């Protein structure tokens, strides 16, 4: 790894390695002492080893194990290769799979179509620098610093049928005690379908602020003269935003898109803390975890689900790498 290390021209100036600087580097390279080369090798080598050893190696392991049957007990010699059997069972004999898959898609759709645009809207409004912007911004951003596990608890404080805010509020407004009485109270987290929607509301509470901050940073970098020019040309606010500002935000859009997709696929804490992903709250991440934690693990089966999750996430990851690093590769 340390074979060809030389000081490089920062891309900020050169935008990547040009053939001429390449030659210059090779000359420089000989100037680096052996010790420097060793230092550089270790500076990259140790962290890279840790990263590859704990992430990429297990990822490959997931792929291999997905074609096997193993209950996780005994040595590796107990592993049996069974071809695509795990995938067949997953698709046809495993009732929790499709609902979980569907939930992941709904989660993604809700975040992309509702939470993210809302975050963007808040960013645009707050970018106008009205009075009190800092306060609004702080309030909207506050949930982002909480873990989704805490968000899960706070959601329970809001949703609990007898003790929660919503139902008690309904009693106070309507004067009718039925809203918190057993049997007639709406069970926000116990009713399948409804409970997933309520989880999305709670998770969205956090996601909106996240998206807002990313866009606020992006909007700040938009050159004001562009807007002024648009204003002079007689464009209204909406036209200015969609025709002038939004295109400039393209890099942010990539980040937000990828963050949204990845967060949707990673979602775990909130449903696990509410009911371990049972009763309509299943997600792929929870099903995989349940197949490892538990008295008897289905290692191959869990791995097959992990591979499905990998296949879904690989697209956005490649897209992101291409968009952010593609230019440097040229």
């Amino acid at each position: 790894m340390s074979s060809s290390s030389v000081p490089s021209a920062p891309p900020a100036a050169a935008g990547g390695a040009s053939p001429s600087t390449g030659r210059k580097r090779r000359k420089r390279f000989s100037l680096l002492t052996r010790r420097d080369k060793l230092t550089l090798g270790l500076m990259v080598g140790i962290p890279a080893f840790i990263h590859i050893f704990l992430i990429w190696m297990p990822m490959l392991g997931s792929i291999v194990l997905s074609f096997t049957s193993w209950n996780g007990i005994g040595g590796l010699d107990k592993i049996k290769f069974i071809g695509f059997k795990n995938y067949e069972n997953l698709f046809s004999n495993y009732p929790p799979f499709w609902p979980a898959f569907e939930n992941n898609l709904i989660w993604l759709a809700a975040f992309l179509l509702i939470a993210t645009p809302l975050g963007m809207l808040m960013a645009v409004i707050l970018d106008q620098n009205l009075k009190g912007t800092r306060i609004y911004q702080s309030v909207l951003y506050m949930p982002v610093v909480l873990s989704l596990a805490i968000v899960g608890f706070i959601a329970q404080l809001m949703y609990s049928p007898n003790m929660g805010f919503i139902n008690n509020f309904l009693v106070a407004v309507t004067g009718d005690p039925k809203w918190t009485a057993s049997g007639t109270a709406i069970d926000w987290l116990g009713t399948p379908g409804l409970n997933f929607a309520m989880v999305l509301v709670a998770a969205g509470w956090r996601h909106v602020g996240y998206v807002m901050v990313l866009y606020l940073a992006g909007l700040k970098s938009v050159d004001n003269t562009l807007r002024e020019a648009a204003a002079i040309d007689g464009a209204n606010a909406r036209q200015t935003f969609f025709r002038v500002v939004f295109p400039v935000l393209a890099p942010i859009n990539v980040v937000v898109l990828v963050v949204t997709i990845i967060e949707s696929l990673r979602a775990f804490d909130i449903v696990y803390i509410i009911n371990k992903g049972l009763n309509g709250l299943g997600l792929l991440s929870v099903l995989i975890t349940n197949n490892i934690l538990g008295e008897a693990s289905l290692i191959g089966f869990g791995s097959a689900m992990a591979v499905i999750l990998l296949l879904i996430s690989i697209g956005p990851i490649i897209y992101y790498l291409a968009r952010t690093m593609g230019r440097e590769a040229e």
Partner: protein
Amino acid sequence: MTATPAPVGSRQVVTGKRQRPHYFTHAFLIVVSLIWFLPLGWAVYTSLRPYGDTGGNARGYFSIGGAYNFNNFVNAWNQADLPLHFLQTILVVVPALILILAFASMVAVALSRYSFRFNLALLMLFTAGNLLPQQVVIVPLFRLYLALPMFAPLSDNGIWYDQLFGIVMIHLAFQLGFCTFVLSNYFKQIPKEINEAAFVDGASVWRTYRSVLLPLARPALAALATLEFTWIYNDFFWGILLLRTGDKFPVTSALNNLSGQFFTDNNLLAAGSLIVALPTLIVYFALQKHFVAGLTLGSTKG
């Protein structure tokens, strides 16, 4: 990308003549902010009241009156063993933060200031690794943790599983990706002349890194430290997966083991949740600038 973006929203929009009062916008913002604040506000309100005044057949939760005190906080603090779990959190967060920032800055310097044959490929590997959903790797990782040996005092059972050391390592592996990405972008913006000057002075690679480049990256490191603190503090999943002994759980993962009264007493639950949320809220309000900078450092780069 700037090192320390000015607080978001500080730029004055020059809209010139068409400045209208924003009554509608303000009304909208106030309503949204109230809705956003409601869950936390409700948690605070609930936590200050004794269960006896709100639960069962008493006033009910949506009411005013009765006692207001911090008893729920005291009870949650003691019943959930929070001091012990906060200690575990510190034992994870502090080493993890130091290692992540040290290693990530080394890789970032090597990849951005020196030319490796594979530096772009490596950077992509780190970044992609950071974006993988954790569940993609956990099946083999779990077996790996059961098999890998480790000596005392880093491990009291001889392996990586059920050890805070193991938690630190997995945070390190994952977060290296993000921090390397952010820091290498940062270092690329530092003029190359600095390296060359150090080189001419005969400084070694290590000295250049340690005494020249690292100090220059202080703002980025501060931003990342703030952000990573929050992320690692908030981690729930790795603790659940890779720990077993109840006493070892960091505070966020320990929430999963709350039992007994916490199930039936929302006031206690509210107090417990707030205590656990408090450190990140404090960090956020105290270091808001760094926090937002950290998030946007990684993203505004096009």
